[in-house]
């Protein structure tokens, strides 16, 4: 009989390894399917544009992808708890602008200032969202406005070059062809992913995303968990902004604002449920790459602009049709 019902020795190894086997199979499925989709898209692009498969091309693409990946990973945390953070892209712009303004006085210490301020603003968003019980959409929408206006006001809407900094240019540089930005983005993602898997915070985030009421009753500190999720999201967004700054050398108050949609799409393309509780950082990372590749693919095929848009639409559809785990998400909204 295959029921545990009859188990007598409760520490039975068999049950444990069965549990671990099933869990890792699920994890694998969750990651492998998007990964295969990503490879498939790369294969298609290579078929039409063989030059794409050079080391040079891949590092170039990876360099460009790094800031978006940071944003996707950060947004994923908030989406995992079932919320949404609309302020991420504007936060990225704001951070870049702020660093450029303060770095003449603070030097690279400014980076710490910017990242901490971002995390604090995120935390505040989470606290307001939870305490006042208003939708995260609205809180982050309002924050978006505040950051947008502030960034424009303090720069008087002018793009400005980054003064002296050691760390930012280093972020934008390469070692042996490997872009530092990508390494940092991946390290951050791995760090976050490990945090989600091996700390209580991770479990609490998933519980809040799956069933907030039950999580509350089980003693999850829902308020702090939400606040931390938003803090992480903003922190990663600021990181993305600085990484983007390392590529452009210039900041401008709206420079990263259009990242918002690709960031959210990346999360969903990777197989995360927009309603929360399903997915993870790994999925988001791969999803972000898929989103980037789809966009690049439409350019690489050399179509005219009208067909670039149409092809983009179709490729997004196809890749999500491949990645999404309908079984797990159940009801798809």
């Amino acid at each position: 009989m295959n029921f545990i019902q009859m188990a007598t020795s409760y520490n039975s190894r068999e049950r444990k390894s069965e549990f671990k086997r099933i869990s890792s199979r699920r994890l694998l499925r969750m990651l492998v399917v998007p990964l295969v989709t990503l490879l498939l898209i790369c294969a298609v692009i290579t078929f039409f544009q063989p030059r794409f498969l050079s080391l040079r091309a891949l590092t170039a693409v990876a360099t460009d992808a790094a800031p978006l990946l940071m944003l996707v990973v950060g947004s994923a945390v908030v989406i995992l708890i079932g919320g949404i953070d609309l302020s991420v892209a504007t936060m990225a712009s704001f951070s870049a602008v702020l660093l450029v303004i303060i770095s003449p006085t603070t030097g690279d210490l400014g980076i710490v200032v910017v990242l901490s301020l971002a995390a604090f603003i995120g935390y505040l968003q989470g606290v307001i969202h939870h305490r006042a019980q208003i939708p995260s959409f609205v809180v982050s929408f309002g924050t978006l406005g505040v950051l947008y206006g502030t960034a424009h006001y303090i720069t008087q809407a002018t793009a400005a070059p980054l003064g002296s900094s050691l760390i930012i240019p280093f972020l934008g540089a390469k070692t042996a062809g490997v872009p530092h930005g990508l390494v940092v983005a991946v390290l951050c993602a791995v760090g976050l992913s490990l945090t989600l898997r091996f700390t209580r915070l991770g479990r609490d985030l998933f519980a809040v995303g799956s069933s907030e009421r039950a999580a509350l009753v089980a003693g999850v500190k829902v308020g702090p968990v939400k606040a931390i999720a938003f803090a992480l999201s903003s922190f990663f967004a600021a990181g993305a902004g600085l990484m983007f700054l390392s590529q452009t050398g210039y900041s401008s108050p709206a420079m990263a604002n259009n990242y918002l949609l690709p960031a959210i799409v990346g999360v969903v393309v990777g197989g995360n449920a927009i309603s929360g509780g399903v997915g993870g950082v790994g999925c988001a990372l791969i999803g972000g790459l898929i989103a980037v590749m789809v966009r690049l693919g439409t350019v690489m095929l050399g179509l005219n602009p009208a067909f670039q848009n149409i092809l983009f639409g179709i490729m997004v559809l196809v890749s999500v049709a491949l990645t999404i785990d309908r079984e797990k998400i159940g009801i798809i909204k």
Partner: protein
Amino acid sequence: MAQLPSTAASIAPRYDEGRLFSGTTEKAMKINIKELGPAFTLVVLALAFSILSAQFFSMSNVQAILESAAIPVVLAVGITFIIVQGSIDLSIEGVMAASSMAVALLIANSITTFDYGWLAIAAGPVFGLAFGLSNGLLYTYLRLPSLIVTLATWFIGLGVATLLFPGRQPEILDGRITMLAIYKPFGLSFLVCIAFVVATIGVVLQNYSQFGRMSFAIGIDEKTTRLSGNSVRLHKILAFSFMGVLAGMGGAMISAQLAVGNPSAGQGFLFPTISAAVIGGTLLSGGKGGVLHSVNGVLILEVLRNGMVQLGVDPYLRHVVEGIIIIAALVVGNWQLRARTRVVK
């Protein structure tokens, strides 16, 4: 021991909104003051601006606000049903772009030789319907997130609009469509009347049609709705089709206002429309809010935007002020609803 009839000390806690059921059953259809938060927000904002600016409450400014609200209201009515169902439609801008081009090219214009008159105007909603129907079909049959499906059709719509774009904006020569924006029998244009009619239809659909009621059911509990044998699929397709028609109308309305076909016609409508719905209390998680909530949300945003211009707030700081007001207004408006076990995403 004697077998006693089982005495259930019944289970009283209530499970929605985390509110406890307090004693006896409430009277039916009683309006809950606590839920009127967003409406108060609108009133308070309007009052505040009236105090701060002499012109704000003038006839002509109220007209200006209503004119600006016309197209967003039409769109918000459509998105309401989709959001109430718990889905989302991002394709609005693409659909509007394609429809606006289609209308402008089919009506008497400066580029093509077509002159289909009213039929051409109808092409807007018809184009929109085609997009909406595709959204609904792709969403429910392929079981893909609506976010993704409509993102795809958004870009496809933009692509179609670009394909239709003949190198310069077709100027509309048929006075019948431009008259919709210009002719103002009671100080308000036909477009405002259209918005009013659409909102009314929305309210009727929401409260009296099976489609409307089923939308609420799907939003709060799709599984049970499906298991009860109701066709969730049909009602989802209906919602997206309805949205498509309205977005197509929106495209035609833009053409009417600007007297040209414009491939960027829809630009900047998506985000405010969804925000308006959410700010008005139609929550993205589904099953809550309604047409009037969303219309209220549109008015809140329009009043804010207009008020900022009336007060002559610095164009950059304007966004800061708006952001803070939106958050503050919702915090205050919702304060009464807070409860420990209430879940808001």
